């Protein structure tokens, strides 16, 4: 197993460490800026993978209703339920690996970045001795740069910072909220809620104990992902009063994933779900995706009616202006 660590160090960790030191020297010796720039560069390089992940998860979200229906229908036959789910995914062109693979591919990069930062911010003498063996002999200037400048903005990058820990938690919560769809299934809703709070709390807690340089990396990385996600799928599940459309996916049409046309019905009181199938409801039969809701004037309402009701509930800027008058 030792060779894994050796290969990891040789081809991933040590190059990253040396690049970070060089970046720092080009950025007026600011290690904080070097962390930010490298995080941006890495995120941009991985953009295709991130995009693929966003598409796949969007498509998976869109299928939730049908998956739930299949589970309900074949509650007593798990094998059949699994087969049906696989069939649905195949028909939709969605692969679970599409969601997970990009995440798994990205993980080593995040881990390497993390390890680089923690090694470069070594404060104990033991850390310096370890770092000395990772510097490239042929890059003579990296030797002069150590120790790196650890102060950045109000931070001492080598020590924990409470405010940065809070920022990590908040930014992660926002990103998590954007990816968590509302669900009619109580179990899924509970799962979503758990995920929504678990990661931000956990990372916020960790950042209260780890060098704030790592928190800076996490905040930057999460901010980039929020931006990418916004341009890819909109605000998703994030519902804030100042967000036009009350958190509905204003950018949702940009990337829909490879979801085939399927039956979609929105209920009157559904403000966040992309698609909810109400089993046995009259709408299940009559409305095709893309059709105007005006075609069905019944109580369930079509897409357009639903959308209008959402806009009214969310208190868009237009309605506010009318109220003031």
């Amino acid at each position, binding site marked *: 197993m030792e060779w894994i660590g050796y290969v990891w160090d040789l081809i991933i960790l040590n190059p990253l460490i040396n690049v970070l030191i060089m970046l720092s020297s080009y950025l007026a010796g600011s290690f904080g800026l070097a962390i930010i720039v490298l995080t941006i560069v890495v995120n941009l390089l991985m953009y295709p993978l991130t995009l693929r992940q966003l598409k796949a998860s969007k498509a998976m979200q869109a299928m939730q209703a049908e998956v739930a229906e299949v589970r309900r229908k074949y509650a007593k036959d798990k094998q059949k339920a699994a087969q049906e789910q696989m069939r649905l995914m195949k028909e939709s062109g969605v692969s679970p690996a599409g969601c997970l693979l990009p995440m798994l591919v990205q*993980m080593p990069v995040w881990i390497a970045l993390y390890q680089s930062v923690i090694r470069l911010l*070594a404060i*104990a*003498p033991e850390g*310096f001795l370890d770092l000395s063996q990772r510097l490239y002999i042929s890059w003579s200037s990296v030797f002069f740069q150590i120790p790196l400048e650890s102060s950045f903005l109000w931070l001492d990058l080598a020590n924990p910072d409470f405010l940065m820990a809070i920022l990590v938690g908040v930014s992660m919560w926002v990103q998590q909220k954007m990816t968590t769809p509302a669900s009619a299934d109580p179990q899924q809703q*509970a*799962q979503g809620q758990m995920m929504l709070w678990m990661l931000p709390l956990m990372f916020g807690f960790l950042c209260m104990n780890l060098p704030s340089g790592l928190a800076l990396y996490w905040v930057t990385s999460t901010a980039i992902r929020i931006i990418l996600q916004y341009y890819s799928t909109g605000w998703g599940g994030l519902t804030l009063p100042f967000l036009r459309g009350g958190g509905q996916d204003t950018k949702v049409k940009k990337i829909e994933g490879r979801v085939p046309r399927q039956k979609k019905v929105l209920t009157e009181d559904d403000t966040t779900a992309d698609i909810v199938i109400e089993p046995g409801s009259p709408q299940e039969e009559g409305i095709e995706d893309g059709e105007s809701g005006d075609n069905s004037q019944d109580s369930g309402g079509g897409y357009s009616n639903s959308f209008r009701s959402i806009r009214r509930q969310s208190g868009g800027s237009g309605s506010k202006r009318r109220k003031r008058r």
Partner: protein
Amino acid sequence: MLKNFFTKPGAKIVLLLLIVLVGTVVLPGCIGSRGALARGWAGGVVENDILYTGSMAGNIVAVNLTDGRLQWSVPLKVPESSGGGLLGCAQGSTTVPIYGTPAVSEGLVYVGGYTGKIYAFNRDEVRDDPRWVYPRQEFIGGAIVGGVVFRDDKLYFASGDNKVYALDAPDGYKEWEFETGDKIWSTPAVDGDTLYIGSFDKKLYALDTADGSKKWEFEVEGAIVSTPVVHDNTVYFGSFDRYLYAVNTADGSLRWKYMADRWFWAEPVVYDGTVYAACLDGKIYALDALNGSKKVEFDLGGPVSSTPVVVDGMLIAATQDGMIYAIDTGSSRKRDLAALGENVYAPLIAGSGKVYIHTNTDALHEIDVHTGAKREIDIKD
């Protein structure tokens, strides 16, 4: 709800990813694999057949070298506000790491704690409470990594708060301090009325021991961690810029410099007209003390960060991975002395025909430099 959550396949994957994240990233970074956490590596000083050193448990210990028995062991008091965070990942925990070599005077033994305090204990009448501590309240404000030096009733040391201090050795009152541009990890070298010390600000300073005023400074391109050594009006020291320097003590002018592949961390050793410079590139360079020309180099096969010693005309050196070598300074022959199988970072300690090596497992090994016979001395409480 929790039960339902963990029965979901997606949740299991997320949980797995979290475990992977914590297991491979956070814990190695936090718990200290590859040295993220300060543990200490104190050298030692031998006086009247008693060896004084700092253990990795944060104790100052005295070992009788005749019978190998632990004479006494006193813990450095844990600072109340040592911090450390909820997980104890940041510095400050239940022990005080000790890096510096202690110093002894007639009645006291002195040692610096990594948390930023100097402790003076009675040598003979040992109590848990030290005779004095400096500062009396709180801490210096920077880690003390270098050793303390006792000379003419004064105690000299430097700290991570960028300062060099001189204390009155009997009672621990500050006599003067001198501030540099960055933290200091090296041990001062005192020669006559001048103190020499290197700083992370890439300068070597020569200070007047009377009042701490600066005589001169010598700037290099890398941080200086290596402790300087003074010999024949020349001060020798290594730097992170990969050079070993020889500087004129009179005016701070450069005599010569020699470049290696990696940092010089250990204190150079001057013996019989030759400077032996241990380097983190795994070699010991034997250089002519007068002009810096290389006489010979010895490849030890692993980084050397512990300061070698000369015992009976033999230079004894240790690699970080615990290989001990003896180099005959006359014939320049190198031979294997021992393979300890433990990491060695602490400066080696010279004894009478023997060398003492404090390893990362907190073992103290006694090795006869002629026969290679070993004895392990227990310094754990």
